[in-house]
């Protein structure tokens, strides 16, 4: 208990760091992931190829390596004014976007073909079909995997602490060096992560019940 109370300011700062990192990268990853999914289902071959390469490369690269690239390589390629925080957000959001892209793409593919055909035979334009028929149905299947991807993102954000970004892992490192019992620190850091991940899953459960339709 003392570990938490003595260092409450540090814990709060780390907690906010993790929240900020997760929220920013999550938002960017969602946008980027949807764009990549659009590329991957588009009728234009070069865009499809770009989306495929993006997903394949990022899904098969260790996140630590990606952070390494963001922290050591990008500054030499012209991003030298960027802070470690921004670089970490970049690495996390690119990595997560690959997974979100796949979730969104498989969500679109679960919409029955007949739905789109019916919409088109009613004379709906592409935008109308997408907005009124496909996306509402795809959203329902896509929500649960995106929820778990955001939880995975929260957990992955710990790696940023190894690269000079202040968040919960940095709290663990700092206090570990100060000689507190590492397992006591571990428990409190774990609780902090649980608060964030449980919050995300609660939000997504709420969204799911809101969007659910009685069939």
């Amino acid at each position: 208990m003392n570990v938490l109370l003595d260092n409450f300011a540090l814990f709060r700062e780390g907690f906010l760091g993790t929240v900020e990192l997760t929220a920013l990268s999550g938002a960017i990853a969602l946008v980027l992931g949807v764009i990549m999914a659009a590329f991957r289902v588009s009728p234009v071959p070069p865009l499809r190829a770009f989306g495929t390469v993006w997903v394949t490369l990022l899904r098969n690269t260790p996140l630590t390596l990606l952070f390494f690239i963001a922290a050591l390589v990008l500054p030499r390629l012209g991003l030298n004014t960027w802070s470690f925080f921004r670089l970490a957000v970049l690495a996390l959001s690119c990595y997560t976007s690959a997974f979100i892209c796949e979730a969104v793409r498989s969500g679109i593919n679960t919409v029955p073909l007949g739905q789109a055909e019916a919409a088109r035979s009613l004379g709906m334009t592409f935008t109308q079909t997408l907005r009124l028929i496909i996306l509402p149905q795809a959203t329902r299947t896509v929500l649960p995997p995106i929820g778990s991807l955001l939880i995975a993102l929260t957990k992955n954000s710990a790696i940023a602490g190894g690269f000079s970004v202040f968040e919960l892992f940095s709290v663990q490192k700092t206090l570990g060096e100060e000689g507190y019992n590492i397992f006591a620190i571990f428990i409190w850091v774990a609780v902090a992560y649980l608060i964030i991940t449980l919050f995300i899953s609660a939000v997504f459960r709420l969204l799911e019940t809101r969007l659910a339709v009685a069939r």
Partner: protein
Amino acid sequence: MSANVLFDAPGPRARVRNRVVGALAALAILALLWFVYRRLDDSGQFASYLWEPFQYTDIQQRIVDGLVATLKAFALAAVFSLVLGAALAAGRLSDHAPVRWVATVVVEFFRAMPLLIMIFALYVGVFTSAPLWALVIGLTLYNGSVQAEIFRAGINAVPKGQREAAYAIGLRKTQVMVFVLIPQATRAMLPSIISQLVVTLKDTSLGYIITYEELLYTGNLIAKNSAGFPFIPMIIIVAPIYILMCLALSALANWIERRGRRSRKGAPPKAGDIKAVEAAAE
């Protein structure tokens, strides 16, 4: 791409439009690649002195040693996590409520924790001088819990009639599991198990942070101690090694999945339920 949820087969006007957009996109992608190449070249990353160290045999030997260390951590973690996963899955499917509770708590706890936090706590608290074991045990606890969920979902996805029929002909609980459920579930689970092994392989790179001398750590050391700090050449060498290893494992998973789908000997249990577990683990 003829019939698609999003659009019909394109007509003449759409074909022209797609071709124009395609040409523009191809140009944009080439411009992007050219820009990256110019940036690298302008900052002198292709200068020969930066690449020279990687021609020395002892440096190459160190990279190979790093790769071996990565594979060693991966092999140990893979075996242990499969064993732990099987044990925890057996616990979660147990008929005895207390066993089930304990297994559930263990699985849920370790699945919810960031891996790095666990590995670091193990490193500082227990294995101060043996980062390999901190890494392996951390990976085992996390991936074992995820594998347990995959196993459980796989066993539960076997049609209920199979279990009932097995009990009806007088098999015991263990026999039902070993002779009827596990063989059928394995076929559906194998792709998910291998995808999780890819995650395990990727996560061995966390050893870099606890100073375990695996591939990334070795590469970092080499780059730090060579003239001109060739970090970018090092990454151009190390990144493909990681990506190719993961791609090879993913390709194996995809091949097995396609093979399982092709087989017509009885309907394999549907993989949908297992996929959900897998998504949670990425």
